[in-house]
């Protein structure tokens, strides 16, 4: 397990979601294992020993958005409700503890909260997330909360502005220091048609890694496929985009084999896109500013409340269409294919971006363009107040 702890501690540092020196893991084999920042590791071990699960991560997020959301919340509230569909589907809500609520038995209190949810926020300390069966699962839950609070906070700032005196400075530092330019420059793609399975697996694996390395998506958020003849080669469910070797399923277009039961939950959307267009590849991720901007709607007097699944309209962010629809067997597999063909890109409300192309270079550049447009638009609107 120590190798797993080392791997996911390194991932937290590499994706810049946690402060390097303030990460700790605990794991229960037949004995308790802790690793990382001394005080946090002791704390993680104490909490985990009270839970019936395998792993736990405690880390201070590299951005203070979770804490700011807690401080911006009314005193009566005790949990954050994510707005993006991915984390809302899997996390439902994120309980938090304010600094002054830790009480005399903080470990017991935190363990009880984690007995109910996959992760929580503790003001001043950070995000605590558990993994029922693996260390990786604890990392995924941490990463989901980081993603969710990122989206929620920036959305909240756009809606309500800064409410706390230090927020403007934090926000400016985030924009200046944490955000990095998104670009496909320097990456190499196979521009000719992919033919052999070896070529296909290699290209999918490489491009998946690019999406994470360039900060376009977090490692567990997204899926990727290529169609060659009558076979869709698609990343597996719960696969990390930056670790796709051995995690790509060949799926016949005619469903003559069910080996692809382990394929991404978005297989049905990929298949419908291939049926509706002549694209050779599909890239899907959850770039954060695209998710945030997709949820901004200027419609007046609309009666729809569950916009993320019920909105029938096609809106536009720049020249990119935005549609609603649930993930998996929900509605996005019906609503994306009709709109993605001509522009080669589409955004799903509160969820993420699909791009297509004759090769992954086209799809990757399209996703970068969408996210950069949404990022620019976000800051333009934020500056306007």
């Amino acid at each position: 397990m120590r190798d797993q702890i080392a791997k996911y501690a390194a991932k937290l540092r590499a994706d810049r979601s946690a402060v390097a020196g303030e990460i700790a893991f605990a794991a229960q084999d037949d004995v308790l294992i802790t690793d990382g920042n001394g005080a946090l590791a002791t704390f993680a071990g104490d909490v985990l020993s009270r839970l019936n699960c395998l792993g736990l991560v405690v880390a201070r997020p590299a951005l203070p958005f979770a804490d700011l959301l807690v401080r911006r919340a009314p005193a009566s509230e005790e949990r954050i409700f994510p707005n993006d569909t991915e984390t809302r589907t899997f996390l439902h809500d994120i309980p938090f503890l304010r600094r002054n609520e830790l009480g005399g038995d903080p470990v017991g209190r935190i363990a009880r909260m984690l007995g109910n949810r996959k992760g929580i926020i503790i003001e001043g300390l950070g995000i605590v997330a558990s993994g029922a069966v693996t260390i990786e699962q604890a990392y995924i839950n941490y990463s989901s909360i980081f993603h969710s609070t990122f989206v929620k906070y920036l959305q909240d700032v756009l809606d309500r502005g800064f409410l706390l005196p230090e927020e403007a400075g934090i926000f400016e530092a985030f924009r200046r220091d944490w955000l990095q330019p998104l670009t496909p420059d320097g990456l190499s793609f196979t521009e000719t048609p992919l033919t052999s399975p070896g070529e296909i697996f290699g290209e999918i694996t490489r491009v998946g890694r690019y999406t994470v390395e360039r900060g376009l998506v977090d490692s567990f958020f997204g899926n990727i496929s290529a169609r060659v003849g009558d076979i869709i080669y698609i990343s597996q469910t719960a696969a990390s985009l930056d670790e796709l070797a051995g995690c790509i399923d060949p799926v016949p277009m005619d469903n003559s084999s069910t080996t692809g039961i382990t394929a991404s939950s978005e297989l049905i959307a990929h298949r419908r896109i291939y049926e509706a267009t002549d694209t050779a590849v599909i890239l899907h991720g959850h770039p954060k500013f695209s998710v945030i901007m997709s949820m901004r709607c200027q419609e007046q007097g609309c009666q729809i409340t569950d916009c993320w699944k019920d909105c029938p309209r096609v809106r536009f962010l720049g020249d990119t269409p935005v549609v609603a629809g649930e993930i998996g067997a929900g509605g996005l597999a019906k609503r994306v294919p009709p709109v993605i063909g001509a522009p080669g890109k589409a955004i799903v409300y509160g969820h993420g971006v699909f791009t297509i192309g004759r090769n992954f270079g086209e799809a990757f550049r399209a996703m970068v363009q969408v996210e950069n447009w949404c990022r620019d638009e976000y800051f333009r609107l934020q500056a306007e107040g």
Partner: protein
Amino acid sequence: MFGWTGKILKVDLTKGRCWREDIPPDFLHVYLGGRGLGVRLMRDYYRLDPFDPQMPLIFAVGPLCGTAAPTAARLAVVSRSPLTGTIYDCSAGGRFAWQLKAAGLDALFISGQSSRPAVLSLEGEKAELLPADHLWGQSVHKTAAALKTGGSTACIGPAGENGVLYANIMMGEGNSVGRGGLGAVMGNKRLKAIVVAGDGQAAVADRARFDHARQDVMRLFRASPVIFGELGIGEYGTPALVDLMRQRRMAPTENFGRTFFAQSGNYSGPAIRKACGAKKDGCYGCPIQCKKSTPEGEHLPEYETVSHFGGLNGIADLHAIVKANTLCNELGLDTISAAATLAAWGEIRGRFPAADELSPLLESIAFGKGEGALLALGSRRVAEAMGRPELSMSVKSLELPAYDPRGAYGMALAYCTSNRGGCHLRAYPISHEILRKPVPTDRFSFSGKARIIKVAEDTNAAIDSLVACKFSFFGATLEEYAELLSAATGAEYSPQSLKEAGERIYLTERFYNCANGFDAKDDLLPPRFYREPGSSGEGIEIAPIDRQRFDEEMQKYYRMRGLTEKGTFAGGDFLGHLP
């Protein structure tokens, strides 16, 4: 009271008496229902021989039964298995469970032995024992049809009447209370069937909270490729796993002598759909509908059945496999144990049964005739009688299902730690080792698997006590089901408190087994898996299981469970500390 009725019907077949008793609410809160309640009710009886007339046969529903909670129209049947000698429970779906709850009952507790064949009839508050001489010897289908006007049925076929050690109890719609031979326990009591009709409605404590949690569950179902994916079990049923097990080279073939069957494509999910016109079918009230049937209503076989009547016996004829499945359902035979017993017998005698021999062999088993008299005892007793005990592919006498343990090391451990013998469903590591849910694990590594198995066993013990279908958890988690339970009952539950209940239930079962002589020597796979490789190929090596690593991980498991090195309890007062 919300969630539970607080009532149990006790039936003494010897005396011909039926009466209702209260179940203390605290008792229900701690053991939930289903498997947990049944296991707790066995506390005074677990040492009895399975065929002792006083051995109880318990049918228990859960607090979510009767509500709109997805996959919760289920019950558990609990007793001691005549096949394995262990405590035994089996979860089954169908309208019977829903009707039992609607008749105002959380459980049936049946003991004694009728002097003549009987049917237990329940209609609301009314309970009576009726003569069933005219039904004795009848098939499951005919029995269920004859009793249809009285409500939903649970009955046995000839296999249960004749004491086949892997006889099922069959629900009227075709669901099985399978594996451990509880049909033989029912037959020994000369109880042919139970028929129940009720019109009560389950009240929910907090309707808005319940509906919200239900929507969360359904959203997760839709996000799960295994459940509602276009290649998932909702579309193709569990035979969707045939192609996957073939690709992973862990499809048991010729009595686990090999792990790859070249003709398995004959009975894959798509092949069954094409050949049989498979349509969606399933348990009452279940949104997944993973069972499949022909347009004429004939139930089609599940993954374990096609694989075991297929590759395990070297048979590639889909129609023979479908026919064998139908016959098992009519006779009340467990398909996994029947097929695995035939495979062990086939290997020992040097010839696996041919496709056209399956039906006559199954008939002979159910009626105890000819070779069937021996085969009715299950593979362990067959192999011992033929002088080749090592060729029974079983753990604690329960035949292994269709996942070769050399292809999934968590599965190897879980077969052995299961309290009911070689079963895949207690910890269900296939979920993460193969299907990548909730997250993938390395199937060829033992690292961390003891802990994962322990957590999963506790979780599944709780699920079996709610009672919900394990397939729900390819999408949902205990978070959503704890919310459903809290909303339904008005009592607060969390995933952690449910796992604590599951641990209590699991350890109680283990204690019963240890008291009956089970220990570490029984927590082992057949020697073949430690000595012989499987069918490597396509870049996948299927090596023999490293016995030393297996033993190390098993010792870790015992330590996590608070057991001795021999897998037993340090003191004899374990039950005294439990409610």
